[in-house]
């Protein structure tokens, strides 16, 4: 079961801040982030990558995107 961050409706840098906070907190594992714009999607993936996390899945939904990031 991965941790879910709901960043829908929030503009950058909020989704990135929330993701980085969670990454710092749990160090490794799986996080699912919900965002609603392409910009947020790119920014979250880029931030995760800079912390050594991998984007494993991006699902497009009616309201936006669900991004899964992972670190073993």
């Amino acid at each position: 079961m991965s941790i879910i961050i709901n960043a829908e409706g929030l503009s950058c840098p909020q989704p990135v801040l929330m993701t980085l906070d969670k990454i710092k907190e749990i160090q490794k594992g799986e996080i699912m982030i919900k965002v609603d714009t392409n910009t947020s999607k790119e920014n979250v993936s880029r931030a995760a990558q800079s912390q050594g996390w991998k984007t494993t899945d991006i699902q497009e939904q009616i309201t936006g995107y669900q991004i899964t990031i992972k670190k073993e």
Partner: protein
Amino acid sequence: MVKNYFSTRWGIIGVGCFIGIFAAFLQKLGNPGNMGICVACFERDIAGAIGIHRAAVVQYMRPEIIGFVLGSLMAAYIFKEFRPRTGSAPIARFVLGIFAMIGALIFLGCPWRAMLRLAGGDGNAIFGLLGLIFGIWIGTLFLKSGYNLGRAKTTHTSAGWLMPLIMLGFLALMLVFPQIEGQGKNGILFYSTKGPGVMHAPLIVSLIIGLAIGFAAQQSRFCTMGAFRDLILFKQMHLFFGIIALVASAFIVNLILGQFHPGFTNQPVSHSLSLWNFSGMALAGLAFALAGGCPGRQLFLAGEGDGDAAVFVLGMIVGAAFSHNFGLASSPKGIGPHGIAALITGIIVCLFIGFTMRKKI
């Protein structure tokens, strides 16, 4: 999924170069000195064109601004990124827009122009840029301590279209009431007959370059405030490469076109009061950081359906009217009679917004 080339490192560098090169060319083609593109100045000129301020030297319906919004709208539709949304504290964004403009007009330029001024040799821009970074740094402290304006919600598609429609309306007004040489007014539109407002590239050139920049910038998410913010907040260089590219390319083109004149005095549309150049941009930088984007980025967001960014843009246009009606804006002669009072008020208002708007999300 098609990879968005514009959002890669080379993409953002390419867009920065594109803006720098065409800004320098727009100056060559008639735009004011070191003002090939200035979002704050051009919105101020639009405020003058529709007569909500009567500073006769800065009145012109700038097609670049219209192009930015409509170009972004086109890109957003082509790449299926148009998302009508609003409701993230619009009133706070309106107020931030007002003070962002007041701060920018104390310095005499938005971040884009600060960089173009630097690329044109205007040393005063250094103080403006330092102020901008300082203001953004204060903004990141608020962001770190939980500041946010809350969530936006999906809204009607037509609501997302309102800012692009306003821009189409402006364009229509310009075609119905075109500039008549030597005349200060045609129909309801004001046109400067002297000063920076009379200096402009041909309408069609301005519009096409504006559209192209709007298109590319929407896709690349180019943002000057974000460049510094992400660097300070995340040590993330991505957007920063874009602004480096802008300065470098504008500098090279300025050299080639003979538009590079290093110095601190007699620079076009500027003053050399370092303290106020710094403080004005510090206020603007803080307001941009709290609102989540530089003036250019707010136009591109408005084009892709962000109603909150559209409210910020309207705030800036109203702020320009306040600036010139109440003597807040600087001029080459120095700062306006009430510039300092407005600056202090602006800082207090931004701090109030920063300290009090930190709803748990």
